[in-house]
């Protein structure tokens, strides 16, 4: 009897995991099933009309902040239509000094549109910084760039055109990790971003339940002010604000065009990666608990939002399941039919792996990079450890959330993504030398 219950549970769980995996696979490849025109940027830019306020929340970003500011100031867009606000906590003397140094250099070239905004109150986190920055924003559209971002020089032209052509007030542009061969897990991390921004976010946008990304997202300033800015007590304020806007019925456009993505780097160490992923998982848990998703108008939207926000908990369970599977593989003798059904999730893993291999080729081709056989081998060898790492981070998030630990675990940035872009590296070096 007990044995039958165990077999039944294994069968049911395996089928559910397979269905979930198949659904995720569909979302992962969603954009490839749509006409190509849906994800690319316009080929012709409209004349610049919309003005932008760029907010760069920064904390201990001395190594990268100057290059980022320089990149924004070099954008192919009239600087009179761009306001740059670097937002720092007042105690972050190092970053503030670097920003001021950069401002000084820019002023010598005639650029007056960059300023640093500081705050002394708490909490010291990104959403609070954004809300502070929003108070100083004056332009039509506000956008967020992270301190380590390599922003494309035409990104403002893209958004200016899309917003005018399609009459949308929120645009999420592509963000892409670049350093796919830095560490054993970086290719997997890069591809996660690749599929998330290039494909899955389109599905969320079309459905009307989208957890937005943390940067390269553009909001109509009046709109963002009206809904009260960012939730300062949420670790994924970006996902939260996306769902709030969705609940308000706001149409959100996602533009992922390989040519115009904002380039970022993977966390440099396993610890940094786990901290970042823990924060995201915990943020999703907070957003789920907050219940904004319940205000979405349709059942499909609510289900998608719930499914997305609850996924970290599922990921935690899956991590445990992987361990149990490995143990039962050697210790439990089941009927062949049961064993065959429990093999289904393995097939899905294999399918995902193949998709990632193709994704690696697509990604490297789009960015003029070269994936070696070693990259594919690392992808294969790192697959299971990476999944376990994600599950561990999810478990850690569950633990933190249950004991009420909500402090912001910052991700370290070293500029590894800029090694892939000689232009950006040169620019950063020149500026540092200057």
């Amino acid at each position, binding site marked *: 009897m007990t044995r039958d219950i165990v077999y039944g549970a294994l069968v049911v769980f395996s089928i559910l995991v397979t269905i979930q995996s198949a659904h995720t696979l569909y979302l992962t490849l969603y954009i490839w099933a749509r006409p190509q025109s849906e994800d690319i940027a316009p080929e012709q830019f409209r004349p610049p009309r919309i003005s932008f306020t760029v907010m760069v929340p920064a904390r201990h970003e001395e190594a990268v902040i100057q290059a980022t500011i320089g990149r924004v100031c070099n954008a192919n867009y009239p600087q009179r239509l761009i306001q740059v606000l670097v937002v720092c906590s007042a105690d972050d003397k190092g970053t503030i000094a670097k920003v001021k140094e950069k401002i000084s250099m820019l002023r010598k070239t005639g650029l007056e549109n960059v300023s640093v905004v500081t705050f002394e109150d708490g909490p010291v986190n990104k959403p609070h910084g954004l809300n502070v920055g929003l108070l100083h924003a004056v332009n039509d559209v506000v956008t967020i760039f992270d301190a380590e971002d390599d922003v494309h020089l035409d990104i403002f032209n893209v958004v200016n055109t899309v917003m005018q052509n399609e009459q949308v007030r929120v645009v999420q542009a592509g963000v892409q990790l670049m350093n796919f061969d830095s560490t054993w897990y970086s290719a997997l991390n890069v591809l996660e971003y690749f599929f998330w921004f290039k494909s899955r976010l389109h599905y969320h946008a079309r459905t009307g339940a989208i957890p937005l990304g943390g940067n390269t997202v553009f909001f109509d300033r009046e709109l963002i002010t009206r809904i009260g800015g960012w939730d300062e007590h949420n670790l994924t304020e970006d996902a939260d604000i996306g769902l709030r806007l969705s609940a308000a019925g706001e149409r959100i456009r996602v533009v992922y065009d390989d040519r115009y993505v904002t380039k970022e780097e993977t966390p440099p160490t396993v610890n940094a990666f786990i901290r970042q992923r823990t924060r995201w998982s915990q943020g999703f848990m907070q957003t789920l608990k907050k219940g904004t998703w319940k205000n979405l108008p349709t059942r499909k939207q609510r289900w998608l939002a719930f499914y997305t926000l609850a996924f970290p908990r599922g990921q935690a369970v899956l991590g445990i399941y992987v361990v149990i599977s490995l143990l039962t593989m050697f210790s439990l003798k089941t009927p062949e039919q049961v064993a*065959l059904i429990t093999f289904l999730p393995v097939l899905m893993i*294999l399918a995902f792996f193949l998709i990632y291999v193709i994704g690696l080729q697509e990604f490297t081709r789009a960015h003029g990079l070269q994936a070696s056989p070693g990259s594919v081998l690392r992808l294969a060898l790192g697959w299971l450890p990476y999944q376990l790492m994600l599950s561990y981070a999810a478990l850690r998030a569950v633990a933190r959330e249950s004991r009420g630990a909500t402090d912001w675990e910052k991700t370290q940035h070293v500029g590894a993504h800029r090694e892939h872009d000689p232009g950006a590296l040169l620019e950063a070096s020149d500026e540092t030398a200057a």
Partner: protein
Amino acid sequence: MRPPRSETRPMSAPQVAVVRPHPAAPPTLASASPQVTGFRSLDRAAQIALVLALVTGLITHAYHLFQYPLYSTDEGIYVERAWAVIREDRLSPQTYVYDHAPGGWLLIALWEFLLPGNFESFGNPVAGGRILALLLHLASVFFLFQIARKFSGGGLIAPVVATFLFNFSPLAIYYQRMILLDNIMVFWVLLSIYLLIRGRHGLFTGLWSGLAFGVGVITKENAIFFAPTIFYLLIRTTRQDSNRRFALTFWLFASAVPVVGYILLATLKGELLPAQLSLSLTRPPQGHVSLLYELWFQVHRNEGSLFAPGGFLHVLWLPKDPYILGIGTVAMVACLVIGWRERKQNPALLVAGTLAFEIAFYLGRGSVILDFYVLPLIPTYALCIGLVADRAARRLPASTARVAVPIACALAAALLIAPSGGYVLKHGQQHQLQLADQYYLPLTYLQLDQIAWIRQHIPRTDKIITDDDIWVALHDKQPYPYAQSHWNAVSDPRVRSIFGGGNSQDINYIALSNGMKHAMILNNSNGQENWILTALNSATEVWHASRGSVTLAIYQVHP
């Protein structure tokens, strides 16, 4: 242990030919050819042609379906395995020896399971399977029509000719009415091709096509011979596709999944590798059955030539339909030659030609074949003939073409009417004109009478040697648990133990046909059927019925 089956597993390779509409400016498969998305996308004439093809397919195959041909041993085997899936939760009521992958009878099991009365829904258990074969045939007609239409650039000549032959050929009808793995496999392979050529390529087209093909392989292994051509077709149809990498990878992945599942099943049962890791063909390893050994054994079987005077070609196939075989061979060669020349512009003819060639090569290479192995050849030959006819019609001057259509219709009518062809009419024994056997000759009533006599006169505890065609009828309702086919009684120790380990004295009755007796003699090269033949020689005939060349009898064995 050797498989007791009457059938072996051959490997066959078909070819896909694609015909272009105009030799001067051939359309490419991806561009100029019509969109093949469904019935509604067809123009009026094509809709009428398709409906006619389906209706004629329904009439030619459904009429007289339960009467002709005789329920065959192989039909019985697959239905009894489907029975085991439903009733006993296993792949075979006897020891499963991996003589075939189980995809085909799993589908039959699903079908029978869905029927309100399961195996008894249509009277005889095999009859229920034949209804499934009929439905699969109709689906295959649809796929063949669309494939021929696509390959010919949208014309109607190719699909009409191809489906006409596919529906009316006496050779086709004879075997397509049976619930055989080959028929199911043909359905999956045509579906796989159809998915590749229909409409715009979706992201998951390769996935579904590959999955259909993979299921085809685990239905009948010889589908694997279609793989190169179908994959080539996929490569050609996705040449301009931005999702090409996904399509190719998905196809390979999905087609491998069912096969991997099959191998995994054998592994889980501890039956992948042979006992003692022996692949000796002279001294088969003892202990347990093995998937790899079975494959090894089959690959090394070589029993006679198709072209020998007593071979199936001369004895069974050509007498049933010399036209489709003769003209089909010529059309296949034409497709290959023309297709090779124009492969860069349009691979259609080459695809059709290679599909047919691979199967023809498989059949002609001299390995073990059974009569119904001709099944995959029929749609591929029909396709080649249709495409070549289309090409020929397009080369005709307009004035000639106006005359050609009525002439072609007249030829088709003549083919149907001519008694020598046996498409609809034939000469009877007294040279009288009568309907051809497939629409006239009742045979299966003999088997029904045989079953009825057994139920009426033989105690349910008696031990009966019989054939697989009536096995399920004797096991499903009012079961005779000790009724077993002679194939299994001589090869499966577990079944043989019912009869005292092969003791003539332990048989009470033998219910057989002249075909079964012939098979026992052929299967007795090592003397394994001796104990049954001995019992038969000393038995008394207690029931007898015959029609034409078919004779059924029941013998009581005296202790």
